[in-house]
């Protein structure tokens, strides 16, 4: 008999009831809440006269609407200039206060982007089922958890019942063998995966990321990769629990301690796919083949190595794809067969739930240290993912490195990933962005997003156009050796 996959094990551990029609009631251990997708759910509960099933399973923090400049941030909610954003953040506070939900409020040190806060606080743990009204909830799967984005109706459903009505997904293994080259990061790995399987490649699947590259990857790198599982169409991405996982979780504020830790570890150590597990689909990449990536179009699958050239629609035989390429080139203001490194950059955004953790900050700082932002780059902002990341970065002096290089150091939040606050692109501007979506208008009306790693974004900010960060790093290494 075939063994179980990691996803099978997580699923089985949480089935409350299997129904005849193929759906199941799945118990949810942790519910993360932010201000954008929750107000209608709280209102729904109130209208129906329902109470949350288990308040102590919920943790909330505002992230999408919060300003990131110190001037606006200093006065908390009262300081938010956009009146509609202010109401939304205030509404989250009101709902959490009324129901007794733990919330890291706007200027709490623990506030930040939900998908950064969950793992770093220990609110999200291996073996859990985790949901949030946000598609990037797939991030937490890096811990060896089943973590999925849900809609607002489901937010209300989970609040009221602690369960999700769900149908089991299929199993996909994405295996990346071998080793990554120097200067190639987890972001490049996940962009290369999406480039290979497409934005719908993972639809209907839970993806497990396996192979030597993930075994060697840090927990923060795994969080980056699982974060973008949804950009490959998969609601859930995950990585097996190993010593890297346990070392990361141990000591986090809300992680179990003492006997409870030992008991938890005994359960977590089983959270890997059995050697004889069968996957419905297996995709294999070779780590050594992956180069630093840059997206050129308006879908994350429109991505290329930095050494590449923009595609020519004339070479595409599929009619729907061909018009897709033509539309993307027009929107992005690019020419067919233009080299990636000839694309100039107007703004740089380093942040988002994909790339705003301390390792991301360090990688970007390493590139810019001792260099200067190109004059042609109007603005380069660095937005840490949480108050704790910000503090850590400042303790390491990274904020000074960024500021000396002409990069702005901001307060934590989602910021320019989706421009719900004041951080945004102007029409026609190209942005080297460490976020996760290059959709039309995503970072501002008419804005042109290029998805890259923190190191590549930093390098583009220095050069004024896309450039292979490995060149900068090797020049710096040579300079240091002199």
């Amino acid at each position, binding site marked *: 008999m075939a063994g179980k996959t990691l996803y099978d094990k997580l699923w089985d551990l949480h089935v409350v009831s299997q129904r005849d029609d193929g759906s199941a009631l799945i118990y949810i251990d942790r519910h993360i809440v932010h201000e954008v997708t929750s107000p209608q759910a709280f209102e729904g509960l109130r209208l129906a006269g329902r109470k949350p099933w288990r308040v*102590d399973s919920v943790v909330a923090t505002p992230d999408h609407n919060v300003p990131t400049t110190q001037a606006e941030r200093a006065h908390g909610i009262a300081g938010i200039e956009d009146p509609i954003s202010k109401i939304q953040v205030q509404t989250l506070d009101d709902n959490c206060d009324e129901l007794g939900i733990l919330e890291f409020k706007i200027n709490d040190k623990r506030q930040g982007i939900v998908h950064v806060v969950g793992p770093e606080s220990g609110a999200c743990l291996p073996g859990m089922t985790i949901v949030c009204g946000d598609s990037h909830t797939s991030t937490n799967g890096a811990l060896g958890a089943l973590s999925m984005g849900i809609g607002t*109706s489901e937010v209300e459903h989970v609040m009221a019942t602690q369960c999700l009505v769900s149908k089991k997904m299929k199993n996909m293994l994405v295996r990346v063998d071998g080793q990554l080259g120097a200067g190639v990061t987890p972001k490049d790995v996940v962009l290369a995966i999406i480039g290979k399987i497409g934005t719908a490649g993972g*639809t209907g699947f839970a993806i497990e990321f396996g192979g030597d590259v993930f075994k060697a990857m840090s927990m923060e790198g795994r969080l980056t990769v699982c974060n973008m599982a949804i950009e490959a169409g998969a609601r859930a991405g995950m990585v097996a629990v190993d010593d890297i996982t346990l070392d990361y979780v141990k000591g986090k504020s809300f992680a179990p301690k003492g006997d409870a830790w030992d008991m938890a570890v005994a359960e977590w150590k089983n959270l890997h796919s059995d050697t004889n597990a069968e996957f419905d689909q297996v995709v294999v990449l070779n780590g050594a083949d992956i180069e630093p990536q840059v997206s050129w179009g308006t879908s994350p699958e429109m991505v290329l190595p930095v050494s590449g050239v923009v595609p020519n629609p004339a070479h595409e035989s599929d009619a729907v794809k061909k018009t897709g390429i033509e539309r993307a080139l027009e929107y992005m203001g690019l020419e067919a067969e233009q080299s990636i490194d000839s694309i100039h950059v107007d703004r740089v955004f380093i942040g988002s739930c994909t790339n705003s953790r301390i390792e991301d900050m360090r990688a970007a700082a390493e590139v810019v240290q001792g260099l200067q932002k190109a004059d042609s780059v109007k603005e380069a902002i660095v937005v840490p993912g949480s108050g704790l990341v910000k503090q850590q970065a400042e303790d390491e002096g990274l904020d000074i490195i960024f500021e000396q290089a002409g990069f702005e150091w901001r307060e934590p939040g989602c910021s320019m990933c989706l421009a719900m606050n004041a951080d945004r692109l102007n029409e026609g501007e190209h942005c080297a962005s460490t976020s996760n979506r290059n959709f039309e208008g995503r970072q501002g009306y008419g804005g042109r997003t290029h998805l890259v790693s923190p190191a590549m974004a930093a390098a583009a900010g220095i050069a004024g156009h896309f450039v292979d960060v490995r060149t900068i790093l090797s020049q710096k290494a040579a300079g240091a050796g002199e």
Partner: protein
Amino acid sequence: MKAFTQHTGLVGPMDRANVDTDLIIPKQFLKSIQRSGFGPNAFDELRYLDEGAPGKDNSTRPVNPEFPLNFERYQGASVLLTRENFGCGSSREHAPWALDEYGFRAIIAPSFADIFFNNCFKNGMLPIVIAEEIVEQLFQEMYATEGYSLTIDLEKQVVVKPSGEEIAFEVDAFRKHCLLNGFDDIGLTLQDADKITAYEEARRKSAPWLFNFGS
């Protein structure tokens, strides 16, 4: 939730693949704490030639004359015909809310993104998966025939063409049941409250670390 049983309506096109939820409802409209009010800004960046904002009077905005859903012949469309991977991207339920309020009761595509697909059912709107070559045929027939309408019969799981030809589609039994009856699925789940409690009690013993958060 409102029920969906049978619907006949004018078909309107969204002739591109990978339509994402940012395109369906841009983020600035997500600041609302209401469940309604999104319809006038569905596909905002395609419908209008300027940038939309919450509270902005749409009647004074320049309409994009090249956007098909703005064409006279598609006014009143209630069945959206589109391409693969519709609704990819964010989990925002504001996307189905906006499409529902725009007037769409059903969406036909070769494939949908998972979260969007799921969100549709929660709002009495039916996403229908039909093979790509048949979707292509429907596009051609729609473009060729002004006033092209389709009938969708959820009970029988068929889309009926003007010619009377039927196209069968699959739908999950539980979702079909909820949609046909307009059931509130929270109410249905709470019928299993004893099972939830029993599961919880067992986990409190086997995994106590899951239950002492925030205390």
